[in-house]
């Protein structure tokens, strides 16, 4: 069963359709599936719903899919770094479903774990709770949130073996595992592909069962906020 493909376009071949729900990994610009996003821009599919914590920035990451207006709706927790997003949203061109960050991550994990709904205290008494079922456990109010079952997951890992077993690096892990889990099909881009046996089985972050197709590519890995400190004189 070959999972390794040559290019992002090849890996996505036959998987894309208008109106589909895509879950994307990444936090800010960290750990985003750059190459797969570019290939989706190239494909021209439209009316997408995208579940992703952020919406990229103007001209990079999901920001590109916003510029081409291929996205109909975003499910996100924070979109503050994207002027084009703001413009489309305020003008009514784009739908936006705000999800608290933890609720979004848990909804993805739940979808992947066959859990259609769970209760959380997050958002009780706020706009987020409007229209949602409330239930009392131990005298406290909780709201029902539903699992996300995406048609396609696009994620980015550091290394994977050819069976799709993947490891992530530092905070680039973020939403990638839950996004991968909630996709009916998951396509992953990595910086390095190795043979089975080269990764320690105890250290796999995402088992290959969650990964259907795999590409290796060059990543820009743009930094959003470059903050540094000065070396003290020695």
């Amino acid at each position, binding site marked *: 069963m070959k999972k390794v493909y040559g290019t992002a376009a090849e890996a996505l071949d036959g998987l894309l359709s208008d109106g589909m729900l895509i879950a994307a990994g990444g936090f800010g610009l960290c750990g985003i599936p750059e190459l797969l996003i570019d290939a989706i821009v190239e494909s021209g599919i439209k009316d997408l719903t995208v579940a992703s914590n952020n919406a990229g920035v103007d001209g990079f990451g999901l920001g590109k899919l916003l510029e081409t207006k291929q996205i109909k709706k975003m499910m996100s927790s924070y979109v503050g770094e994207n002027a084009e997003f703001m413009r489309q949203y305020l003008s009514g061109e784009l739908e936006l479903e705000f999800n608290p960050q933890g609720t979004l991550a848990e909804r993805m994990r739940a979808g992947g774990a066959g859990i259609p709904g769970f209760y959380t205290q997050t958002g009780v008494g706020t706009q987020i709770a409007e229209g949602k079922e409330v239930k009392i456990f131990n005298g406290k109010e909780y709201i029902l949130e539903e699992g996300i079952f995406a048609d396609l997951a696009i994620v980015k890992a550091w290394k994977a073996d050819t069976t799709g077993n993947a490891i992530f690096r530092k905070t680039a892990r973020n939403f990638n595992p839950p996004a991968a889990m909630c996709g009916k099909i998951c396509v992953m881009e990595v910086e390095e592909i190795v043979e089975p046996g080269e990764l320690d089985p105890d250290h796999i972050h995402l088992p290959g069962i969650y990964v259907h197709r795999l590409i290796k590519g060059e990543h820009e890995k743009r930094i959003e906020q470059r903050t*540094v400190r000065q070396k003290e004189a020695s």
Partner: protein
Amino acid sequence: MAWDRNQMAARAAQELDDGMYVNLGIGIPTLVANYVGDKDITLQSENGMLGMGPFPFEGEEDADLINAGKQTITELPRTSYFDSATSFGMIRGGKIAAAILGAMEVAENGDLANWMIPGKLVKGMGGAMDLVAGVGKVIVVMDHTNKHGDSKVLKECTLPLTGKGVVDRIITNLGVLDVVEGGLKIVECADGVTEEELRAATLATIV
């Protein structure tokens, strides 16, 4: 006279005890890390890290290592990384002892608003709603009034809420207040601020 940003951060750092796992929000809360001294505090970054270190030296930035404010940071010997579902599992599960957050408005019943201004500012709540719902203690650090001089410590919030009845303690440039039965209780006034000045700058009921 009143506390400046660094003095507010220093005061907030006094809330932290040895062994605590703590989440610091963006802005003044970030400065709290500079004032923990010898206390054994582990900082969580909700994008998937415990044991957040300082900013990197120039040239040592790593695109794969950022905090929840998307800033480049470093790791410590004690650091561990995990995914976002696990990260917010520990937040919702009450494992984080305290969150120190900024705010646009706080009300006397502990309501907190810090995520949007309808029609104007639509950035999103990020992890703030999860934090205020889940962590052991929510400490707000903010200026007592906005740039127009209006109190941000209110009877009721006017902006969409981040959490209902979630704030435990408010630290502002004018002093420290606790959310208690019936309103706010003055814990202390900032250097050179009188209780009268603090009361005058506060719309919330002070009990």
